[in-house]
């Protein structure tokens, strides 16, 4: 078959081998002399760069195929086969996964390079890169997996790496707790994923449990099953992609090193949920109601997290909530069956959000690990390059034309309007304004005005080239990535949408150009309003505000963490403690204890009968004999 390849499996394998080699070397040398950082850095960057090259090859190979059969696949080995279940360790590259592949390996490579600078002099330098490689490998399995089960391997693998990297500075309890939270919350999502897979399997899995077969058999599914499966899978997506109600782990995940936040918690892993919904578009497209539900969940998440973002004082928290918010947009897009718009936003977001995080990392690096924006200020002069690149990233995030974020976000909002979901659109426009506000609040407070901490300001300096070069490259991406999917209105041909079309079951929302113009105008207006307010409040330097009332409530993220703690975590621990310390020993064990008690009591009763008087014993005998005689007399009748 022309579509089979032999190199697809290499793509996830290379980073995994890299992780194994680095990990092995690290464990082997951790007791004695360590190998130089430069060696590990080179080793670690090899795999991502190679995978990027392979990803490019995949892209061009796909382009060479006719649209109808535009996919590449490779079944490496039979993973497990039980009864009607036959799961192959197989990989599939189609336009959708190749797009993901390109930007994952691209940003991944850049972030690996950046990390060499950022993590310099860290005592477990090698361990960090082992994790990073492992993450990349898992992410690639997730993207390339040819069916849900293989995807799940990557899905859980990235969760694991996320946990390991959040807990990276493991001496601090709060970091580990954040890691635990990420893993556990993700597992709640995975619970949905696994159940979704199970129901899907028993419905149509016997005909093959890979995407191609599933897609072919999807028409046999009853609608109730589709709804159930779609909702369960979406539960998985809310866990991985930090949507309501499972978004709580992502802000805490900022405890990890900043490149991790850039790679995992902004650019790649968190978008897995969106990717998954797009992957299963052949199911979601059948149930519009579920799609609308997803869209609403997404847009409300976007709104809520944008509100949080407006009040945060930690530079990474601001970015984290902006990530949650942008993910909300993406779900709004895929929910409304505008899959390519959602995926396109994933694509552009990867550039500008990675850029913003790496920029924030540079700032933090320069400020000696200070993250509070109210301790910064005026850094524009000290970090000119970082400032410029971050400005580009912020403009893209805020949706300023013609930066990449503008096109992708606009496409989602346009779909909402075009498909008649005016409510979603209105909220979306509102969130766009808020995004512009909090992004530029950050920029103004950090880079403009006068320094708030003179000492730290004096020591701040631009990071080394190994860190700034990736910033520049990403900034270029953030600037121009939007043009790849230039809509017809601006004379483009929507190349990305067309590229993705074979993979997605998309309904095109056709509407008049006027609608599109309204959507664009609203977005641009929202952007300018947001940035204007930010300028008015923070443009010339401002003092740290004191939050009261709603602001304080929003600063504390509506106390959702505390709420979960009270209604879920504490009761769970209390029940656990009760079972462990009381119920198991005193209630569950009751039958055994009753038997034992009864036995002992009966024993003491019989002990009492052994009175020691010989006459008593004679009486027992006579009584016994009498009963025997009576029995005999009975039998005479």
């Amino acid at each position, binding site marked *: 078959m022309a579509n089979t390849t032999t190199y697809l499996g290499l793509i996830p394998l290379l980073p995994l081998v890299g992780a194994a080699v680095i990990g092995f070397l690290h464990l082997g040398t951790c007791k004695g002399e360590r190998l130089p950082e430069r060696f590990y850095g080179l080793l670690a960057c090899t795999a991502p760069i190679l995978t990027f090259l392979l990803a490019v090859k995949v892209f061009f190979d796909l382009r060479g195929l006719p649209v109808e059969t535009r996919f590449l696949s490779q079944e490496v080995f039979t993973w497990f086969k039980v009864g009607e279940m036959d799961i192959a360790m197989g990989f599939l590259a189609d336009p959708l996964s190749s797009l993901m592949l390109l930007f994952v390996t691209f940003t991944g490579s850049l972030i690996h390079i950046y990390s060499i600078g950022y993590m310099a002099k860290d005592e477990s330098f090698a361990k960090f890169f082992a994790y990073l490689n492992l993450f990349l490998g898992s992410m690639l399995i997730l993207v390339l997996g040819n069916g849900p089960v293989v995807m799940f391997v990557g899905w859980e693998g990235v969760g694991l790496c996320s946990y390991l990297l959040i807990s990276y500075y493991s001496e601090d309890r709060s970091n580990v707790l954040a890691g635990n939270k990420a893993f556990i919350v993700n597992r709640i999502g995975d619970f949905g994923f696994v159940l979704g897979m199970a129901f899907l399997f028993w419905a149509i899995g016997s005909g093959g449990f890979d995407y191609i077969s599933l897609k072919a058999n999807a028409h046999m599914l009853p609608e109730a099953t589709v709804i159930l499966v779609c909702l369960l899978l979406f539960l998985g997506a809310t866990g991985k992609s930090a949507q309501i109600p499972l978004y709580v782990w992502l802000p805490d995940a900022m405890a990890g090193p900043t490149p991790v936040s850039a790679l995992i918690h902004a650019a790649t892993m968190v978008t897995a949920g969106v990717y998954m919904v797009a992957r299963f578009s052949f199911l979601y497209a059948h149930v519009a109601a579920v799609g609308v539900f997803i869209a609403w969940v997404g847009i409300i998440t976007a709104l809520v997290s944008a509100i949080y973002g407006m009040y945060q004082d930690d530079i990474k928290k601001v970015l984290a909530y902006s990530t949650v918010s942008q993910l909300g947009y993406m779900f709004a897009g895929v929910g409304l069956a505008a899959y390519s718009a959602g995926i396109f936003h994933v694509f552009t977001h990867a550039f500008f959000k990675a850029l913003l995080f790496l920029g924030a990392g540079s700032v933090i690096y320069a400020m000696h690990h200070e993250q509070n924006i109210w301790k910064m200020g005026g850094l524009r002069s000290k970090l000119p390059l970082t400032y410029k690149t971050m400005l580009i990233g912020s403009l893209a995030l805020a949706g300023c034309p013609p930066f990449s974020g503008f096109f992708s976000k606009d496409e989602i909002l346009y779909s909402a309007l075009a498909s008649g979901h005016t409510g979603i659109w209105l909220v979306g426009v509102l969130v766009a304004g808020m995004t512009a506000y909090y992004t530029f609040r950050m920029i103004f407070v950090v880079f403009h005005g006068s320094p708030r901490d003179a000492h730290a300001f004096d020591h701040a300096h631009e990071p080394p080239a190994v860190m700034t070069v990736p910033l520049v490259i990403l900034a270029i991406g953030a600037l121009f990535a939007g043009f790849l999917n230039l809509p017809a209105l601006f004379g483009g041909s929507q190349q990305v949408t067309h590229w993705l079309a074979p993979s997605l079951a998309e309904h095109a929302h056709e509407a008049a150009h006027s609608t599109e113009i309204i959507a664009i105008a609203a977005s641009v207006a929202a952007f300018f309003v947001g940035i204007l307010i930010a300028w008015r409040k923070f443009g010339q330097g401002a003092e740290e505000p004191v939050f009261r009332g709603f602001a304080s409530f929003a600063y504390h993220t509506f106390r959702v963490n505390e709420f979960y703690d009270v209604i879920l975590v504490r009761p769970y621990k209390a029940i656990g403690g009760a079972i462990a310390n009381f119920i198991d020993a005193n209630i569950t064990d009751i039958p055994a204890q009753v038997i034992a008690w009864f036995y002992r009591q009966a024993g003491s009763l019989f*002990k009492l009968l052994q009175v020691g008087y010989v006459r008593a*014993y004679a009486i027992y*005998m006579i009584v016994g004999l009498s009963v025997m005689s009576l029995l005999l007399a009975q039998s005479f009748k």
Partner: protein
Amino acid sequence: MTSDLVFLLPLVTVTIGAILLMLLSAFEKIRIEVSSALAMGIFAVAFLIQLVPVGPDDVRPFVSLFNGILLVSDFTRIASLIIIACGFFTAMSSISYFRQNSFATLEFFSLMTFAVSGMILLTMAQELITVFIALETVSLSIYVLVGCNRRSVLSTEAILKYLILGAFAGAFFTMGAALVYAGVGSTGFAAITDAIAMGGLLQNPALAGGLLFILFALFFKVTVFPFHAWVVDVYDGAPIPVTGFMATALKTSIFAVLANVLLLADDIRGTWVDMLFYLTVFTLFAGNLIAIGQNSLKRMLAASGIVHTGYLLIALIAVSGDSFSGSVILYYLAAYAASTLGIFASLSYLSGNDEKRRDFDDFKGLAKVRPYSAAVIAIFLLSMAGIPPTAGFMGKLYIIVTAFQAGQTALAVLGIVSSILSMWYYLRLIIAMYFHESEDAFEVSSSRSAPYCAFILAACVLAMGLYPVAI
């Protein structure tokens, strides 16, 4: 005629030996050690003679002389072997015992030999008064053995209780024999069989009542509930080797008689199968319930002996006349005898001067000081509890199999349940021996005979468990 003599020779040997020992002790010509060695020699000779097989058919030796009141079969032969072996090991272990308890008299071994001769006779007797005479020979000897520590008030109390109740039961036996005589006109077993064959047991109330009295007396001897109450006190008061001897040899011989009586006619078992069922169940549970509350080892073992009686009763109920079930009883008896004798042999030397270590707590930490002694005791206990790979397990297996085969499912299950209950107190001793720190130095006499005895018996227990083909 010569072959008849061979079958009677063990009985004759033991009886002559007993008389010889009595004469020697009357003149106080020998020491205790020599006396016990002589007794062991007598038993050894008798044992070897007894090994001569009987052949396929049962033999009534010297029919003209004894008028068929004796019968020799494989069943009686093996029962006698067990009894003689019990005598042998008791004699062996008592040497060590008497090193630490200074009330030994030369008559001790003579009386024991007499008891054994009575027991051998019991297994062969086919006539009620012969049974009575043999029973009294055994009982009278054992009464004296129980009370042979004349300085101990406990020992005297034990003999009083045993004597009163034993004689009481014996009187019932006599009255039972009289009633049988009234119903049948003879006290021979063959006549009883014929009488039942003619019209059934229930057609002959005197016979039925007589047999009931006789069963009662025998049940008393093997401690069937509710005739069991004496056993705990008597075992407790008696010297340790005597207790072991009573628990094993006496029980073996009485069960031989019981099997003989119940096998006379199917009608006997048929009539009383319900009664036997309830007696068995109560015996099993009463034994366990008494044992659970005991602190003294001897009392616990006495009570556990009641439980084992219950198991043997299961086998008796399931006996269906074919030889297989008889062998089940004998296998169980042998297994039980080996473990019980073994544990009493161990106690003979471990209990120390004047039996000062009596309770569970006194044996705490034994394994730390005397690991091998503790190990053999553990083996005996596991055997009594019926845990593989010991003889006790195979014995229980046979009994449960027989019960299922005979359709006595309820009894089989109750037997198993009782086995679970008995784990409780057997484990208690193991835990005391192994899992506590020792508070005692466990100094014992220098005599090695009881320890050797215990080791040999432990080997027997394991060998019987691993190669149960002997059956």
